[in-house]
């Protein structure tokens, strides 16, 4: 064995961006993930949840909601007020249409993938038609006060359930009218605090599932406007909700970092009466769980701690093995660090800038595992800010350390670094 010097690089202060939203493609093959910095990542289920594609973020473009429509087309909407279609082949935003209702908080595609509904800051729900090569505004549905935080289509595409602050609404798609409005206030205490409906799901049976800021998961009968079941899972808010395709299992994520599974189970053996039962709690996250998804074999959750956790359901697995293992994606899957071997330099890539460091060095040698005293401490040479709103996609430093390059979605930049004693000069080529 040769001798190695191991550098402890503790000066790479990367702050990973938290997971903001998740969307499973209807056919179940892919998962789209939106981060708080606007980056969108695509994971492929078939290839062991391999991170297939990354679309870097954009300063002006946040992602609040993602959805798959019309086959394999991915749309995103954000607080910028625009709906963007992503070019999955070119790994960039293809084109965007302004929603016209202020910041967009939520977006949902209908079952057939032909229409998109968005929930806006001004309380309106707007329908967009998905047409080849883009989307087209169709019409406005009934507008009420209060931002629409979540949306869900009924599987038959006739109704939309929308959750806002303190209430949920059911809208008829044909007439555009509000057909039911349910207040979800919290009456338990003297002071009625504002109750935020964080997420909503419309089941085929006519049940509307909501999660709110009081830690409740509630099941409503939308036609009668009555509460069917209420489960308090947490003292903090329940932020996210996802339903399995068969509608017999629900996963919710709370702001305490825990996720819970609900299952629709028969009350008695062989009887038709079924009830939602809270079954398994999981505590994989340290921060808010902002997004959950339910694939046919696994519960997927993403949180502000930037982790993506894929928890396979044991009962759906045929055998124990690699498929059935718990997966946690803690690290970025791209190369963010590049190394100039000869010049002993490191280039770190952040979303908006690059940092060039010189590694520390030592004269001494020691035994295995020993910490050697440094002759020269690591040195921060250059911080290179990128220009424009686009985030850096990739970066590299040449082995001699004189060339630094990075690229965004649309541009490529090359710099020359000159070392003159202690001072460092950078010139754009």
């Amino acid at each position: 064995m040769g001798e190695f010097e191991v550098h402890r690089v503790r000066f790479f202060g990367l702050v990973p961006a938290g997971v903001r939203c998740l969307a499973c493609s209807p056919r179940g093959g892919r998962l789209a993930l939106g981060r708080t910095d606007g980056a969108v990542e695509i994971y492929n289920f078939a290839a062991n949840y391999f991170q297939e594609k990354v679309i870097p973020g954009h300063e002006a473009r946040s992602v609040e909601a993602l959805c798959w429509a019309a086959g394999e087309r991915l749309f995103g909407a954000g607080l910028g007020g625009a709906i963007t279609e992503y070019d999955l082949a070119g790994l960039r935003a293809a084109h965007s249409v302004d929603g016209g209702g202020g910041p967009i908080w939520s977006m949902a595609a209908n079952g057939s993938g032909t229409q998109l509904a968005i929930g806006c800051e001004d309380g309106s729900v707007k329908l967009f038609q998905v047409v080849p090569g883009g989307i087209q505004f169709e019409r406005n549905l009934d507008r009420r006060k209060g931002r629409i935080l979540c949306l869900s289509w009924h599987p038959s595409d006739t109704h939309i359930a929308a959750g806002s602050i303190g209430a949920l609404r059911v809208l008829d798609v044909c007439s555009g009218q509000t057909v039911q409005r349910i207040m979800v206030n919290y009456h338990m205490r003297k002071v009625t605090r504002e109750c935020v409906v964080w997420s909503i799901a419309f089941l085929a049976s006519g049940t509307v599932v909501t999660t709110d800021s009081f830690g409740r998961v509630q099941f409503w009968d939308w036609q009668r406007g009555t509460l069917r079941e209420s489960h308090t899972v947490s003292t903090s808010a329940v932020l996210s909700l996802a339903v399995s395709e068969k509608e017999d299992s629900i996963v919710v994520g709370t702001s305490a970092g825990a996720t819970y599974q609900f299952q629709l189970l028969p009350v008695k053996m062989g009887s038709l009466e079924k009830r939602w039962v809270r079954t398994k709690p999981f505590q994989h996250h340290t921060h808010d769980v902002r997004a959950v998804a339910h694939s046919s074999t696994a519960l997927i959750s993403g949180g502000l701690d930037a982790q993506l956790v894929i928890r396979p359901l044991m009962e759906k697995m045929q055998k124990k093995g690699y498929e059935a293992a718990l997966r946690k994606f803690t690290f970025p899957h791209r190369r963010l660090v590049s190394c100039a071997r000869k010049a002993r330099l490191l280039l770190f890539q952040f979303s908006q800038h690059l940092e060039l460091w010189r590694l520390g060095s030592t004269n001494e040698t020691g035994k295995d595992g020993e910490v050697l005293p440094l002759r020269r401490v690591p040195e921060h040479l250059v911080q290179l800010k990128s220009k424009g709103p686009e985030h850096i996609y990739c970066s590299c430093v040449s082995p001699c350390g004189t060339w630094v390059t990075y690229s965004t979605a649309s541009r490529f930049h090359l710099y020359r670094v000159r070392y003159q004693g202690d001072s460092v000069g950078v010139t754009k080529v």
Partner: protein
Amino acid sequence: MVAPGPLRVVRCGGSTLCGAKAVFSADSYLLCASGDFVKMYSLATEETLRLMGGHADLVTGIQLNPHNHMQLYSSSLDGSIKLWDFMDGIPIKTFTVGPKLLALYALASSEDSVFVVIPKSGERDTFQLVAVKLTKAAGQDLEARELSVILDGVDASPKRIAFGREGEYVASVKEVHLQVYFFKQKQLNRFSVSTAKTKSGNNRFTCIACHPMEDCIATGHADGKIRLWRNFCHKKEYTFSTLHWHHDTVMDLAFSMEGTSLLSGGVESVLVLWRNESDRQKDFLPRLGSPIEYISVSSDGTLCCTLHTDNRITIINSNLRFSKSIQGLIKSKDVKTDLVVDPRTKALVLNGEPGHLQFYCLQSDQQLFSLDIVQRQYIHQAGLNQADLVKVAFSAEGNWLATVEEREEVTDPELQLKLWFYDEETQSFKLNTRINMPHEDHITDMCFRDMDELEDESLILVTAGRDRVFKVWVMVEDTDPEAQQSVSWSCDFVGSYHNYQATNCCFSEDGSLLAVSFEEAVTVWDSVTWDLKCTFCHPPGKIRSICFGRLMCAKYLIGATDHGFLCCWNLLSCALEWSAHLNVLVLQPDPLSEHIAAVSWLSKESSLFVFKPNEPRPIYIQRNLCKEKIKLAAFIPRDEPEMIGSEKYLWLRRSQLFFLTDTQELMTLSTKSLEERLTPSSKQLAVEESLPVTPFSLLLGRHRRQQSQEDIDLGKLVVRNKHEQDSPAVKELLHTPAHVLPSASFLCPIFINSLLISKEKKSDEEVADEVEMQSEKTEDDSDEERDVTEMEQEDTSPMELLGEITCKLSKSQEKELRKIRKMDYSWISAF
């Protein structure tokens, strides 16, 4: 008079109640397995109504007969199942199964069989659940050998098997495995929790309960978690959710009748109520005193009860409010105090709850009260050294109580001597003096100079310590004007002998002499001048206990050594009078006679020797008193001297001897035979008299008072008498729950007849006969026969005769009652 039989050893308290879950009967009684007996308590008065004995070994399970809620099945380690009519306390049938029965379950859906847990033949420590077919043949004693195995490899504990909704399935847990057997599908599903020891401890199963309405199983685990299993009819797609509050083992679980809430309990002595199977909605009933062993819920859901490890029963309302507590002899961790008799209440005093002194009334088998001595919060945690009470002594009048508490520390023990004065106003003991570190080391013995005739000022307390001294404590006037009390205690004299450890101390009957044993020697001191009078020694062996003789034998001093010698010294001649080779564990003098009882432990059995100090031959010997080691004994003075025919048992005339065994069962010796002790008393009546006053009874009472006043006005005193005699019948009618009564038209004639002023008593009986079916007649005859035999047994002594007369009166009432009751039941069984 009955010919004197041999003395019988009778268990009279402290039998473990934790053999099986308690059962609520349909009408406000609670049934509990207690040792070899089944006890029936009234929920209204907490009184022990009936003691059903007949099993030859520990009762392991009791269940109401699902087809007749007035009957009870009980199973025992003696291998038999008994069917009882618990209202009358009569065994109806005995089914002999054979092997040890460890648990019993009865199901409404299984017509003629019950389920028991038996050890698997040929294998040690493996048990199986079997169904026992109970034959319907006539006769009292039946064989029930028809067994069919349901589940193999179950746990012996009755908590670890539960039957599900409508008897569809049975679930059993053992170690980390749960198995569910579906009767209809004949399908067995097994589930396991991970065996890996997690950081929160191990997750072995400890108990199980099934939801009464839904397919849901709740299991308790050793790490304090509760798991709710659902969908367990599928082998793979089962699921469970977890509830976690307990920090230690979940001891028992019970669902409410509708299954909307779940009760759990453990060593924390907190009952937890989980609503809607939710982690967030739970209520607590804390401070129940001691670890919860079993939880049971009444069938109407209004009450639940918890059985505790210290033999206490707590009855709790449905809204989780403490309602009542039934406590007999509290089982403490270790009885360090002697069995002491409180001279005031004649109650037995010993360690109760940790740090408490319990006063146990022998007559009513109830705890009178519990005195908090240590006055510190007890923390339920393993391995924590907590202060506990070790010695107790009462002064002769019961005005003063001395207690010693210590905390076991390796380096220096923490000792406290407390003196309590009985406050007449508050009727309880009040702390007078507290002495920290009265001795440098453990206190080995303590006694008051008990002289009845002398006034309070001459009271002396002597403590003997392992620090090689004995100390004399006297009362002194308190000179401090601001002091709340006029007297306090302080040390007067410290005596020692050759630097030996003082082990025992004892005053002579007149209080003039004090005997203190120092390892191998006994020293006798003058209690006025504190001069050493003389010493006795009988090597080899250290003195285990000493006592003075009483009355005629006051000149003798008895000592027992741990080398197996019993010595008697004459104090006048200062010489050894006699000695005997006997390994004496307990030496107990009777305060009211010359007799001294010695209990020996030889070849794994305890034997009792009763002797007088003036003669070396024992008066009475009973070998093989019991298999357990007897630790403590006490003579309890009787209220009135008992008539004892035989010369042999004369020593039992004025006091009764009680023993406490290793397992903290209280036993006594009785000259009476079994039948006499188990009196089918008319306690039932007494209970109904002591029922709480309801608005209805007030109304009725006023009505009656008016009526009686009218009677007096009319001068019909005789008639009023008669009317009172009939009233139990009416009373019974009014006290029986409305839903078990026959139709009003049926009852009307009886009711009216009972109100009618009958000319003769005979007409009354005729009415009753009409109502009864003719089949009852034979039983009636037998009743009468019994009456006759009892008449024959009557003694000539006038006092007894008087007793019989009152007894006869109540008997006729009882007969009346029984008729009414029988009628009720026959009506029920028709359905």
